[in-house]
C-alpha cells in the first residue's frame, strides 16, 4: 500500500536488525575458535554437549531475567537466589522425598522474587536498587545458614534429573535448556500474559489506561525471574552433587550480558527468549574457547564485560526510538 515507503522496514534493515545479531555473533565466534583451536577438540559433539552442560543454569536464569527485563525491571539478586535455593534444596533432599526439596527450593526463589516485586511497587523505586539490596541480604543468609560449609547431595535420582544424568549422548541439561526455551518462548510470545508483560514494559501508562493490572504483571515478572534463578540453583546442586554459598556468585554479569546481546531491551518492552538462550550459548562458547586456548578465568570476566558493553551499544539506538 501507498504508505509503506514511510516506514523503515526495508529488507536491509531487517537483516541488520538487532534481534539477529546474537545468531551472527554465535556463528562468527564458533568459526573463529574452530580455526584458532583447530588442533583441539573444540569443534566436536562432546565438547558442545559439555558447553550445554556448563551453560544450562545460565540459560535458565537468562530466560527468567528476560521476563523481568520485559516489564522494565532488572533482577540483580539472581546469583544469590541460585545459592539460596541450591542450599535449601540440598539441605532437604536427603531428608524428605526429593520432589519436596525441589519444591521448597523453587518456593524460596519465587518468594524472593515476590518480595523484590512487592517492595519495588510499594516503595516506587527502581528494581535495580531493591534487588541490589536483596542480593546482599540473601547471599549473607546463604553464608549464615551453612556456616560457609558445603552441603553434599547423595540422592542419585535428584542429581540425575537435575544435571548429572544423560539419556544416551544427550545430557539432561540439554532437555532443561529446551524446556526453558520452549516454556519461556510460548509464554512470552504466544500468550495473553506475555503480551501484557511486554505492553507494560513498552508503555505502562497506556497499559494502565487499557485496564491492565500493571502492578500485578510487574510483580509476576519478578516472581518468574526468582523462580528461574531457583531452578538454576538446583541444576547446579544436581550437577555438582551439592551446594555452597558461593554458587551463582559470578553469574550475574554473564546472565545480563547473555540477555542483552540476545536482543532484549534493558529498559523494557522488547524481549526475546530465543535470543537470551542463544546469548547464553554465546557466553558458554566464548568461555569454553578461552579455556581451550589457555586463558584464565580473569580473561573470561573481561570478555563477559566487553560483551555486555557491546550489547548495550547495539541496543541503545533501538531502545531510544
Amino acid at each position, binding site marked *: *500500500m*501507498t*504508505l*509503506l515507503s*514511510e*516506514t*523503515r*522496514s526495508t529488507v536491509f534493515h531487517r537483516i541488520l536488525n538487532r534481534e539477529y545479531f546474537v545468531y551472527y555473533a554465535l556463528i562468527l565466534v564458533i568459526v573463529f575458535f574452530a580455526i584458532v583451536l583447530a588442533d583441539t577438540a573444540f569443534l566436536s559433539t562432546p565438547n558442545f554437549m559439555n558447553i550445554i552442560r556448563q551453560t544450562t543454569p545460565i540459560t535458565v536464569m537468562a530466560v527468567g531475567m528476560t521476563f523481568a527485563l520485559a516489564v522494565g525491571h532488572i533482577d540483580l539478586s539472581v546469583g544469590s537466589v541460585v545459592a539460596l535455593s541450591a542450599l535449601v534444596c540440598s539441605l532437604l533432599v536427603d531428608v524428605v522425598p526429593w520432589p519436596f526439596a525441589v519444591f521448597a527450593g523453587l518456593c524460596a526463589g519465587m518468594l524472593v522474587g515476590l518480595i523484590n516485586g512487592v517492595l519495588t511497587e510499594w516503595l516506587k523505586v527502581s528494581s535495580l536498587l531493591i534487588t541490589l539490596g536483596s542480593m546482599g541480604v540473601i547471599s549473607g543468609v546463604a553464608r549464615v545458614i551453612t556456616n560457609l560449609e558445603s552441603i553434599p547431595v547423595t540422592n542419585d535420582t535428584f542429581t540425575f534429573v537435575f544435571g548429572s544424568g544423560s539419556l544416551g549422548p544427550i545430557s539432561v541439561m540439554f532437555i532443561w535448556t529446551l524446556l526453558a526455551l520452549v516454556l519461556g518462548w*510460548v509464554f512470552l510470545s*504466544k*500468550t*495473553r*500474559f506475555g*503480551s*501484557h508483560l*511486554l*505492553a507494560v514494559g*513498552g*508503555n505502562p*501508562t*497506556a*497499559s494502565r*489506561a*487499557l*485496564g*491492565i493490572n500493571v502492578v500485578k504483571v510487574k510483580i509476576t515478572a519478578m516472581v518468574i525471574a526468582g523462580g528461574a534463578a531457583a531452578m538454576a540453583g538446583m541444576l547446579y546442586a544436581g550437577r555438582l552433587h551439592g551446594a555452597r554459598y558461593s554458587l551463582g556468585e559470578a553469574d550475574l554479569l554473564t546472565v545480563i550480558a547473555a540477555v542483552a546481546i540476545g536482543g532484549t531491551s534493558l529498559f523494557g*518492552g*522488547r524481549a526475546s527468549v530465543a535470543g537470551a538462550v542463544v546469548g547464553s550459548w554465546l557466553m558458554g562458547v566464548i568461555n569454553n574457547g578461552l579455556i581451550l586456548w589457555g586463558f584464565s578465568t580473569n580473561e573470561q570476566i573481561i570478555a563477559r564485560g566487553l560483551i555486555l558493553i557491546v550489547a548495550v551499544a547495539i541496543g541503545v539506538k533501538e531502545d531510544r*526510538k
Partner: protein
Amino acid sequence: MTAEYHVPDTALEVREIHKSFGGVQALKGVSFSILKGEVVGLLGDNGAGKSTLVRCISGVHPQDSGEIIINGQEVDIKSPQDARDQGIETVFQDLAVIPNFDVSKNLFLNREILSSNPVLKFFGWLDHKEMNRQSEIALKRLNSRIPSFSEEIKNLSGGQRQAVSIARAVNWGADIVIMDEPTAALGVEQAAQVNNLIKLISSQGIAVLLISHNIQHVMEVCHRAVVLRHGRAAANVRIDDITPDDLVGLITGAKRAA
C-alpha cells in the same frame, strides 16, 4: 429521579456535575448532552475544567455529584472499566499505544482473542490470525491506510498511530468516543487525517466529545461547541452560528453567550 423527557437520540448527557479536589472546586455543575453521531467540541482555557470533566466521564476521577446519562439511563461510572462497559472509549493525546507492538496487537491489547482450543485457551494462547483478520476489518471501516499489520507501531507516523488508537476505540463498539487533544502531537497533514477520521466515525453514528485547543479544528469537525469557564458551561453553541473570533471570545471570557 423525577420524570424527565426522554430523548432516544441522545448518546450522552451529563447533568450538574460537581467535582472538587481538596478545597478547589474544579467543576461547579456542568450540564450538556451529545446526540448520536454528533461531534461536540469541549473548549476552555487551561484550568477551566475540561480535563476534570473528561476524567469524570471516563471513570478516572468519579464526580462528587451529578448524573451521567447514557441512552436515557443513568449510569454509575466508578472506574475506566465501568466507562468502557457503558460504551465510552477514550483516545488520549499522548498516543497511548505500545511502541514495540504491531497494529493488531495494539488494537487487541487487553481484549485479546484467544485460541478456540480449550486447552490452549486455558493457557491464554492468542489467536493472532483471527486478530489480524479483525484488525483489517476494523481499519478498513475507517478507510485507514495502515501499511501492514505486522508493522511495529513505532515505525508508523503519528497520524497512523492515532488512527490505530481511534480504531481501537471504535472497534470495541463504542457509542461515545472521547478524544483528548488527539491532534496535539501531530503535524498539519496528519492532524487533517485524524479530523477526517472523526468525521467518518461520526457519520457512522458514534458520538464524539473532542477536547481541543485548536479553534480551526473545532470549526472544521464539530457540530457544536461547549465552552467551559471556571468550572461551568459558559456556552453551548452550534458551530454554524458562531465565528472563530466569537468562540475565542467565549473561551477567554471577553464575550458572553447570547
